[in-house]
């Protein structure tokens, strides 16, 4: 069974003329890392909102089609109940940091769920250790950087132990270094904890290497779907205004102007290995890690 199934969903916000989603179908399996891309205003955020019931419960509008989360129709359960299955992280860390310090931020959701005191304290302690938040655990939000805030929010959501983590441009307000760290963190959460990740992200270069599936949207429609190595090669991607990771661009250029290369690279390291391999295989690679 699919973990999330979006079945032919069309949605129009109350007061707007055009639908924000048109006949969207999407299936997400347990443990998937799905990257959703598309230009601003293409309906990515709206799609995410259908996955935890914010649509249709919180936003008014006309919705046709159904969304199933672990077999349950989102129309039938409250958003706050779905919060235990689907954790949603938004763009602006400032507006998601609800309380006045890190420790309390993590316990907030657990208190809402009505867990026992001892249990909450245990989970908070574990989460702080796991996410390396010891140094900042007593700090108020205004003493934290954007990256730290976003990390705390992801930790606070995961403390509630949802199976699925849905993130709407979590790095939009961050500098490249912190953006990279957040996306790396998502990869670890995906691999080590087995959580399903659904990520909307403009920084495709950082996210493409970890995603096992890419969904491209434009004007409320899904225009392409597949593995990152397939999808980023398509011409339509650049036409709708999505940033193609530069290793893919280089691959395209080289295959066109030089000679065919076996696979599509997604990182600088992969590109390097492919080029090395094609010329003088067997030479050793530099031992340090590429970090650009």
């Amino acid at each position, binding site marked *: 069974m699919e973990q999330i199934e979006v079945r032919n969903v069309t949605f129009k916000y109350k007061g707007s003329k055009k639908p924000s989603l048109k006949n969207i179908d999407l299936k997400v399996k347990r443990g998937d890392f799905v990257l959703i891309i598309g230009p601003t205003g293409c309906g990515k955020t709206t799609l995410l909102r259908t996955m*935890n019931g*914010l649509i249709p419960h*919180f936003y008014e509008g006309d919705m046709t089609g159904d969304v199933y989360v672990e077999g349950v129709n989102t129309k039938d359960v*409250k*958003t*706050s*109940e779905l*919060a*235990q299955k*689907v*954790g*949603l*992280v*938004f763009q*602006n860390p*400032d*507006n*998601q*940091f*609800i*309380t*006045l*310090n890190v420790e*309390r931020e993590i*316990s*907030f*959701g*657990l*208190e*809402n*769920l*009505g*867990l*026992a*005191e001892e249990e*909450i*304290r245990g989970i*908070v302690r574990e989460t702080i250790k796991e996410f390396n938040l010891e140094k900042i655990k007593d700090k*108020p*939000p*205004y003493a934290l950087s954007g990256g730290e805030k976003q990390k705390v*929010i992801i930790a*606070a*959501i995961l403390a*509630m132990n949802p199976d699925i983590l849905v993130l709407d441009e979590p790095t939009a307000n961050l500098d490249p270094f912190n953006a990279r760290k957040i996306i790396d963190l998502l990869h670890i959460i995906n691999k080590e904890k087995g959580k399903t990740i659904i990520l909307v992200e403009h920084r495709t270069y950082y996210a493409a290497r970890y995603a096992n599936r890419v969904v491209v949207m434009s004007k409320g429609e899904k225009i392409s779907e597949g593995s990152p190595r397939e999808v980023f090669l398509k011409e339509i991607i650049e036409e709708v205004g999505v940033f193609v990771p530069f290793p893919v661009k280089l691959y395209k250029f080289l295959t066109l102007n030089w000679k065919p290369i076996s696979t599509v690279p997604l990182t600088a390291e992969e590109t390097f290995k492919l080029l090395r391999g094609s010329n003088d295989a067997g030479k050793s690679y530099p031992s340090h890690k590429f970090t650009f």
Partner: protein
Amino acid sequence: MSFVKAFLFEPETKTFSKLDPRTKIIFLTFFWVSTLLFNRMIIQIILFTSLVLIGLISGFKEKIKDMVKGSLIFTSLIVVINYFYYSDVDVSLGMGLRFLVLMVSSSIFFASTPPEDLGLIFNYFKLPYSLSFALETASRFIPTIALEAQEIIDAQRSRGLELDKGGFLKRIKNYIPILIPLIVNAVQRSLELAESLESRAFGASNKRTYSKKLKFSKLDYLFSIGMGIALAVMIYSAAFLKIEEIVTLHSLIKVF
């Protein structure tokens, strides 16, 4: 802004801040009840002085300063209006001082009580969580919105807006281009906050729990018992001794 600032929680740990929130409620009750029991100046002076002393010892000098400064205009207004009404200096000054006692005691209470403790007290008195949550959110977002206001002021100034020009009315008008984006942003912010509350299961369970527990320490007992006795003395002297009729400004002037 000094008025708003005086109500904000101060994260620095002070002995007074470490007291149980219930003790602080007793502290607040003492000052509110006592100041409302008496009309005349003498008792109000005693109350105000003892309040300021407690505040100074506990390290809330800045808060008291902010509060007194912020409520100065309103206090003078109260004194003047009461003077016209009663034509009695004693009572009108007493009323002004009463207002200061109310404001300063509340400011010390809010400055020393972490907003999450408010939730605990509300829960203790079986009041709805949404009320204390509103207070908590307010103290969470006031610094953020103040920062944003400054950004908007800078942005509008760099577009040529002159804030400190013209007469009184013109100056108020000057602030319209600041207020409109500020309000629009605040509405946007509240929507985003509501979304994140939904995804944090806000209101999912009827029985919300709290990870922190209320606990009375020795100091709490000492402080509350002291305040309790003082409150009893105040009520007794107001109700039975009619102390105000004996100790008035006029009688004191006669004595000296």
